[in-house]
């Protein structure tokens, strides 16, 4: 049955549906509905909820529960996610599965509490110290928030790797009708490495410390092989109207919704606008972007940042077509009119001008 939920609440309930019974968090706007929801639900289902003394403590509690073999989650928003980076590096280094939700807000510093996508670099390039990746999933609707949180736990367990949900204030606070789908049980590896007490077996050690020369390099090589497997098997994206498109927009999450509206408005024109919406930001869907870049006049990347994902788009395109950028910063969300104006500006095609009239189309 459909219900009206905020993205934050949907993320929380989806985690519970996925079997997460350990949630640790610290209040920060705009993800408060999530921590509040967990404080209400966890006791009802025999789970554990702690309002931690800091985001640092919260991520380390997640580390503990993950090491103990359980599905664990924390959530925060940009400044709090910065604080968690130490813990995320340790989680990656100890190969612990967990889910971290970042409901991004404007930055840098305390910034503001409105929607932003300015934590892209932090999320997909590692964020903390060391050579590591978190799997990063970017929902663009409340339904997709629920679906991706559910999948995040499976991905985390499959690869023994932290998974980040990269949302923003709009996706977190937006209410939409959604439902929790029944899912087939996945065949996931047993957590034979977890800390359960060494009764009748050799002891397990969960650690990221490799002081003996050569061991750390060997471990890093193992990590890189794992990341390569993730890049090969877990890329997700959505394309809209990219077939025969003159220009293709690349956008994720909230920005992608705006771009999808632009695509809709352009449907009746000769000038075709397409959209590639990365769902996994890491691994990045570079293959499809490269392929499509060979057939279009240009690409326009739209973000709520000063230009972060656009760097990965350019790396994927390898100069095969011009890559333009339109961004809003400091909590601004692009409108379809602004995106259309930018298209008209970057496309050397008079047809694009007709799009301008479309800006009036509702």
């Amino acid at each position, binding site marked *: 049955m459909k219900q009206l939920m905020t993205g934050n609440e949907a993320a929380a309930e989806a985690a519970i549906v996925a079997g997460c019974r*350990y949630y*640790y968090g610290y209040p920060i706007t705009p993800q408060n509905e999530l921590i509040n929801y967990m404080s209400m639900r966890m006791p009802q289902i025999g789970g*554990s909820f*702690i309002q*931690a*003394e*800091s985001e*640092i*403590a*919260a991520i*380390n*509690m*997640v*580390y*503990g*529960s*993950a*090491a*103990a*073999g*359980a599905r*664990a989650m924390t959530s925060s928003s940009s400044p709090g996610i910065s604080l968690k980076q*130490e*813990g995320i590096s*340790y989680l990656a280094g*100890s190969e612990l599965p967990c889910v971290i939700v970042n409901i991004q807000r404007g930055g840098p510093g305390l910034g503001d509490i409105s929607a932003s996508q300015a934590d892209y670099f932090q999320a997909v390039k590692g964020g903390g110290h060391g050579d590591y990746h978190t799997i990063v999933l970017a929902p663009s609707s409340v339904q997709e928030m629920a679906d991706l949180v559910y999948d995040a736990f499976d991905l985390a367990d499959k690869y023994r790797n932290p998974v980040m949900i990269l949302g923003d204030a709009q996706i977190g606070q937006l209410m939409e009708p959604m439902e929790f789908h029944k899912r087939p049980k996945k065949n996931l590896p047993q957590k034979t490495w977890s*800390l*359960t*007490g*060494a*009764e*009748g077996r050799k*002891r*397990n*050690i*969960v*650690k*990221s*410390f490799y*002081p003996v020369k050569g061991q750390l390099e060997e471990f890093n090589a193992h990590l890189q092989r794992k990341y390569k497997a993730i890049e090969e098997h877990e890329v997700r994206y959505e394309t809209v109207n990219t077939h025969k498109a003159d220009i293709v927009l690349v956008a994720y999450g909230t920005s992608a919704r705006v771009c999808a509206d632009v695509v809709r408005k352009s449907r009746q024109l000769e000038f075709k606008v397409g959209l590639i919406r990365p769902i996994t930001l890491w691994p990045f869907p570079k293959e499809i972007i490269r392929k499509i870049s060979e057939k279009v006049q240009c690409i326009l990347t739209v973000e709520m940042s000063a230009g972060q994902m656009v760097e990965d788009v350019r790396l994927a395109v390898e100069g095969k077509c011009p890559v333009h950028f339109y961004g809003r910063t400091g909590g601004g969300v692009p409108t379809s009119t602004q995106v259309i104006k930018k298209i008209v500006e970057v496309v050397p095609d008079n047809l694009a001008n007709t799009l301008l009239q479309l800006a009036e189309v509702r």
Partner: protein
Amino acid sequence: MKALYEKPKTFIDTPTHFCPGCGHGIVLRLIAEIIDAWGIRGKTIGLAPVGCAVLAYNYLDIDMCEAAHGRPPAVATGIKRVHPDHVVFAYQGDGDLAAIGTAEIIHAANRGENITFIFVNNAVYGMTNGQMAPTTLVGQKTATTPSGRDSINYGHPIRVCELLSVLGGSSYLERVSLSSPENVRKTKKALEKGFKTQIEKRGFSLIEILSPCPIYWRMDANEAMRHIDEEMSKTFPLGVVKDWTQ
């Protein structure tokens, strides 16, 4: 023939990385003895800190977890919530517990987490070449207090047991030392009391152990033991600081 003295089974037979005269080996051995005697190897999970005891998992044959610097109380909390009937202990030094991890230990204590904390206080950062610790004595020379800790610029030694004693969630707090065979026996008793507090689900316990660091105290082993009795115990008086287990 009956063996009078043996290596505990849980204590792994390997050379340690500890310096000569260091107290860590004694404490780890005491933990191993208790685990053996009580038969709890299969349900015990330990946490190693960052600092001199970072390699504690090399010496104890039990499930063990590393934690980031100062974070063992938070990590232990996460483990204990999943395995409430296991014995979970965190092994921490003074820099780990009383400087970078101050928030974590205070809040774990305040929540009354049913976990045993073993706090090895040697008043100096050993792993990083002997800098000032939060528990460094006034006047003590370290790498970062070359003319001795003066309280005007560097503050005062933090008395962790006393600090935690005012929190409603802490149940058992005792300070012991390794300065003599008698004190080592008392340390073992205190550790037993700490584990017992947890097993009986009576809440947060912390055993603070004054432990020698001859290298960075610039003393020989005997002087270091005397220093614990004559100097350190003045700032950090031995004894039970709080017992709410009754």
